[in-house]
């Protein structure tokens, strides 16, 4: 299986793996700003269902995206056990509601497999590649899928 273009074989990369909608995903560590406990958000009018609202991150107003809902895996019933991953996408900062954050993976570029072209909807665009891990595989999330859809053209 061919490797995605953006990573060279020799690159050493670090990913943070997380669980959303019962599946394992990962995001490159350089994109992650911080990980916080879930706290109630302020709902936004006319927002898509995956955008839960906005949260105060030390004075900045950031939108919170339900990653499971965004990936079509059903709404997440947020509770204090859930986690918010604050990620930077371009010049925007977004909080992702996920089930849990698992570990940091260190992989080389050659260990990353291309995401097979299949399925419909967001899937082909939302997964950049796959990494094999002990309990199966982790899917590398494309940055654009993390943003609320109102921002996606921008990113």
């Amino acid at each position, binding site marked *: 299986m061919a490797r995605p273009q953006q990573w060279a074989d020799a690159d050493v990369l670090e990913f943070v793996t997380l669980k959303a909608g019962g599946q394992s995903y990962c995001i490159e560590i350089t994109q992650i700003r911080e990980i916080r406990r879930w706290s109630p958000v302020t709902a936004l009018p006319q927002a898509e269902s995956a955008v839960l609202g*906005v949260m105060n991150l030390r004075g*900045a107003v950031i939108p919170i995206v339900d990653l499971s809902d965004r990936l079509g895996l059903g709404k997440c019933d947020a509770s204090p056990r859930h986690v918010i991953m604050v990620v930077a996408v371009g010049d925007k900062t977004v909080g992702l509601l996920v089930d849990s954050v698992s570990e940091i993976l260190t992989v080389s570029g050659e260990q990353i497999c291309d995401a097979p072209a299949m399925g419909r909807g967001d899937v082909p665009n939302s997964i950049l590649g796959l990494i094999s891990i002990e309990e199966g595989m982790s899917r590398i999330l494309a940055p654009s899928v993390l943003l609320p859809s109102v921002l996606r053209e921008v990113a």
Partner: protein
Amino acid sequence: MSRDDLKATFFAECEDLLEQLSEGSQEMIAGNADDETVNAIFRAVHSIKGAAGAFGLENLVTFAHCFETVLDRVRSGDLVPDTDALHTILRSGDMLADLVELAQADSKEIPEAMPAILDKLNELSGTEPHDTADDDVSIDMDMDAGFFGFQPIILDPIGEDEAPEPTDESGFRIRLAASSDLFRNGHDPVLLFSELAALGRVETRCDMSGLPAGDEFDPERCYLNWDITLRGPMTEAAVRDVFMFLEDLCEIEPIEEPDTTGFASAEDQEPVATVLEDLPFEDSAPVAARPAPRTAPPPEPAPAAIDLALGAGTRSAALDSAAAEPADRPKGAKAPPPVPQTTLRVDPERVDRLINTVGELIINQAVIAQKLLEMGLATNSDIMSDLDDYQYLARELQEGVMAIRAQPVKPLFQRMQRIVREAADVLGKEVALVAEGEGTEIDKTLVERLAEPLTHMIRNAVDHGIETPEKRIAAGKPALGTIRLSAAHRSGDVLIEIADDGAGLNRKRILEIAVSKGLVPGDAKLTEPEIDNLLFMAGFSTAEKVTNLSGRGVGMDVVKTAITSLGGKVTISSRPGEGTLFSISLPLTLAVMDGMVIHAAGQTLVAPLSSVLETIRPRPQDVVPYGREGRLLSIRGTYVPIVHLGNLLGFTCGDEISSDNILILIRSERSGHVALAVDEISDQRQVVVKSLEGNYGAIEGISAATILGDGRIALIIDTDAILTLAGDLGRDMALIEETQHGKTAAMG
């Protein structure tokens, strides 16, 4: 400092100088000018010229030079400016501003009007038009000096008669090895020498051995070196101060013992020098600057040569006063120019960061206060009173930080002077702009974003408001129309008024146009204020022909949108034959506003206090059904539509409006009012406005967000957008009120 930094500083200073220039010109026109005013204008132009020369901005130098020549004649009394000349001076100031702007944009374009103004200036200065494009005048002069032998001169200390004889024969020997960039960086040796002369006796000797022959000669380069002996009781620091910006270029060493032989060591040079002893500065100031030019150079005013040449953005106050003093002396002028108010140039970004942090501090204070209250502490406990102090200090800090951003509206108003002038010229009208309250300070962002709407309104006032002189005289008014532009603080807002004494609004005509453009139905009966407000509707432009000025299709609706986006309001009132008054009210700052904290559909929201008229807890009989789901509020004999805020924003769906709701009456600019039904009102407080667009996007009906005492975010509702969302209910209501005729309106 890199060259770009220097350039940026130059343009920033140009702004100040142009402001001084414009202020001075206004005073001259008003007839309030004294010698100092003319001097100030002259200095401003000269400073711009000097620095422009350093950056090789030829157009600017050429123009500034001609302008300066005229000003110098005015200053010396050779030319008593008549109205026409004053007009030219004003226009020249405008042109100079244009040229600075062009230079800033790196454009070498010559503005269309420049040749005409140059001709006029040349006429006034009484010189043949001549091309100064290539020669920075001061360089020209120094080269003359080079060719005809620079004469080392002893410049007697200024005011020697009062000063005691120097008892100390010690001094300093300075070698100034001029770099080729000396002139380009805006330095002028003559200035340095005159500054040294203020410290003690100066002997200079010029080393011309570096001069290249013929073709290789670059007039912008400096090839000369100087040896300077300075004698008198002065400190080394004072001497070093003079060369503050030239430290790498000069060697300064104290003279150990009296050395009367001067520069005995410099024998390998052509002995071109003669020492002119006892050349009193008062009698022949020009000598220092222009040692006997053989051919007549352009009539460069002598004092100008030793006047301040802006040191490429590194102007020092010391240079300023030291240079200005000898310049003024020969004329017998009294005082040196007033010391300019010292200001600090700070990157706005830093201030914004500070404002943000202070905003956080205030929120943090509120969070702590709330938590302490929840702990059940008595309000009179020690910690609570300390917390009060904390709150007080935080507010104080916030006010102080906000004040950094505050700027007087003066520069903005002065720009308007120019707009009036130009518009009046084009239209052949006589208009004077009277500015009031120029010292009123408002947030920097407001100043910047007001420029365009204000320009538009001022042009409109000249174009549509003020009549032609003939019509004015026929109406028994003075031919000169007046536009009054004023700014003042009014109960936490800034009120800006633009009043003209023109013909007033032609309501009949406005209505005709609105009908013909289909903006209102032909049979609509509108009240006078309603007709006036038609001006603010999109697509309305009364200009019968499209002029260069106003009436370019963008009309007052653009002005209104701009003002509204700043959180302000614009209103209009007019009396036929007496004039029209536009009032703009703006919040003092965009960063903080007074809000009412409300709850609707389980959400906490903030309504801008400025748009809340009143809050009402209605009696059941006051809420009357209207259509299937709609409700009207009966208040003091009128009916106001009620909008369920939760439903409107999509938080809830189909919730009924009941008399349990609290109603907030908000005003709409266009017409009528709307009552928002909410569950609860909990507080009224200052909130720090946070943009939603940074990390999310614009949301209809929401203008921004803020952070409440518990650290959670509350959305700030955009009342104007709420009204739009609710449909044009307000207008429907207005019609209903008139017809008292029930028709179904879309209330959901």
